[in-house]
């Protein structure tokens, strides 16, 4: 009852705070902004033009080709080279004018040439004043090697005919997303789902460190409520606020067209993940002397927590690693993607959540029950750990 009274009034105080409401809605605006950015990014990827975020060699250099049978021309990479067929005179003229980086002149090849193992005549002319010449030389060399291989194969086949029916039939997968796209979509969705859990650390700090700094902890401790209930009541208020924010985020994400199957289950996973995150934040807040110290501590802790959530999820999406199921983010991805889920996928992350929650709240409560933590002088971290582990009597 006392715990719920604290939760109720913490929530009331929070929701009545104009500053909090401003931050709350600003966070929603940030989400909307991120969704717009993400959708623009995906649209660019899916368009023909594509989106290039890294330095590109697209049509880096120009080559004019005199290749009546397109023997080498067909093997050249049009994404790197701008390939223009031309007559020999026209091409040489353009090369002399500096209009192209190189000219490739390829002879013709007929069946008798093949049978007599006659070499294919090809001539490469490069503008040595052009710094792009090395790229042209390399690309033409590659195309030449490919053409040579194909000609050799053709000749070999003419000697020993192969039944085409026995040749391996390779069918290109046209359904589903490519791995990079899966990474982007699933991980981005998961990050957006879990992000609200990291936006309310300041609430935990204000609840626990703030009470110490404002010295209101003294009168709160004087109330006929156990200190455990005070800690749990305050943490519950933060979890409820996170749950509220998460619900709004999920609704916005669904409206924005994110592929979120089983949204209620996903929401439940997110909220369950909030419990140990608040607990870990509470340990830092309970031990810290002031806001500054707590802020620094929480920044470090959140890097570890994000790593713990996101690394297994990344490993899962890229289909690598053994312990991908330990993160609830992986579970959430499987749930919103409607993928096969085993009992192990559910039990392992939930058991970890439970374990971390018990440990983190247990430590926070033990800290909050100590006079030196609330009123000082605060013990050093090493001394405190030794005492908490029961190695040395408190």
């Amino acid at each position, binding site marked *: 009852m006392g715990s719920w009274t604290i939760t109720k*009034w913490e929530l009331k*105080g929070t929701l009545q705070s104009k500053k909090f409401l401003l931050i709350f809605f600003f966070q929603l605006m940030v989400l909307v902004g991120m969704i717009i950015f993400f959708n623009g990014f995906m649209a660019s990827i899916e368009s023909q033009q594509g989106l290039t975020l890294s330095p590109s060699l697209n049509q880096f250099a120009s080559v004019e080709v005199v290749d009546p049978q397109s023997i080498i021309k067909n093997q050249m990479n049009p994404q790197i080279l701008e390939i223009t067929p031309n007559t020999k005179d026209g091409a040489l003229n353009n090369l002399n004018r500096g209009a192209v980086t190189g000219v490739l002149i390829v002879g013709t090849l007929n069946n008798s040439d093949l049978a007599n193992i006659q070499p294919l005549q090809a001539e490469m002319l490069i503008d040595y004043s052009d710094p792009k010449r090395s790229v042209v030389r390399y690309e033409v060399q590659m195309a030449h090697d490919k053409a040579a291989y194909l000609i050799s194969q053709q000749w070999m086949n003419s000697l020993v005919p192969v039944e085409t029916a026995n040749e391996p039939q390779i069918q290109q997968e046209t359904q589903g997303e490519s791995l990079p796209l899966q990474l982007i979509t699933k991980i981005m969705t998961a990050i957006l789902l879990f992000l609200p859990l990291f936006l309310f650390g300041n609430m935990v700090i204000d609840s626990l460190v703030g009470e110490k700094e404002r010295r209101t902890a003294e*009168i709160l401790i*004087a109330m006929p*409520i156990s200190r455990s209930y005070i800690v749990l009541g305050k943490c519950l208020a933060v979890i409820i606020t996170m749950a509220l924010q998460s619900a709004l985020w999920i609704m916005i994400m669904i409206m924005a067209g994110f592929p979120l199957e089983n949204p209620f289950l996903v929401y439940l996973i997110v909220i369950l993940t909030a419990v140990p995150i608040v607990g870990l934040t509470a340990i830092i807040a309970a031990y810290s002397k002031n806001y500054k110290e707590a802020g620094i501590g929480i920044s470090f802790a959140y890097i570890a927590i994000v790593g713990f959530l996101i690394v297994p999820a990344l490993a899962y999406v890229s289909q690598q690693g053994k312990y991908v199921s330990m993160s609830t983010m992986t579970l959430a991805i499987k749930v919103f993607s409607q993928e096969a889920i085993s009992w192990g996928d559910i039990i392992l992350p939930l058991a970890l959540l439970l374990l971390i929650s018990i440990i983190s709240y247990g430590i926070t409560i033990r800290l909050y029950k100590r006079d030196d933590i609330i*009123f000082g002088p605060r013990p050093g971290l090493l001394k405190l750990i030794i005492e908490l582990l029961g190695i040395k009597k408190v």
Partner: protein
Amino acid sequence: MRSSTNMIEIKSLTKRFGKIVALQQLNLDIKKGELLGIIGPNGAGKTTAIRIISCILHPDEGDVLVGGYHIGQNPLEIKSMIGYLPEEPNLYERFKAYDLLKYFGELYGVPKEDLDSRIEELLELVGMKHRAQHRINTFSKGLRQRIAIARALIHDPEIIIFDEPTMGLDPATAMNIREFIAGLKGDKTILLCTHYMDEADLLCDRVAILNQGQILDMGTPHELKSKIHGDIILNIGLKDPSLIEISTLEQVCPVENIAWQKDQLYMSLSSREDIASIVEFLGSNVQSIHTKEPTLEDVFIQTVSNLPENIE
């Protein structure tokens, strides 16, 4: 549960903060309905003692019984019996006065149906009814202290603990609060920690002098004052102090606690009638004569200065 008329029994209480000993084998009893004052300088251990009684701090050694309950075994029952006003009001700034009282009323478990009327009653009592819907952060220190007192009384506690209730307040507000505390006497058991000796003198049934975590003396203000200084303190200004021999003066009449301050001579007398013989003895060397009733401040200074570590 209660076995005696003592509402609070402190037995061999010791509390350390690191290497600092805040309380050292403290023993103290407070009777039901009594207003006991604890006086002492800053750092004497007053706040530590009342925080332990209020179950805010844990003792290192010893025990405290409040209303028959042990602080180590029944802290929640004890907390329900106590209304605690800390040294600083420490209120939630963002709350309105009314909401603050409601919050603490709920935490103390005041029945819902009684809470509103109780808040109204207390706001009326501390003269803050017109500010009920104002935020705490708009209040002056005096108003905050009034709200803090109302907060401490919200559950109608049997025991009220005031820690420096008038510290930092202007004389008028301090007087109001003293009058308010005086009004609570008899009905409640009150523990008042203060370093304003006149406040303790005015309000308390008994006073305990605490210094360096130990009770140096305890009794009614009158007992304490008479124990140290007798009935009256005589202050004589002298033209030439070198002409006076203390041993000769002591032969004239029974004087105690003779002390010099430059050309001022202080002494305690058990009777006013002795003044005439002293003046006669000093003769024309007398420049001025003042008399005053002994105060708790005199008692406190005398008690502390008599400690072995303070005697050169």
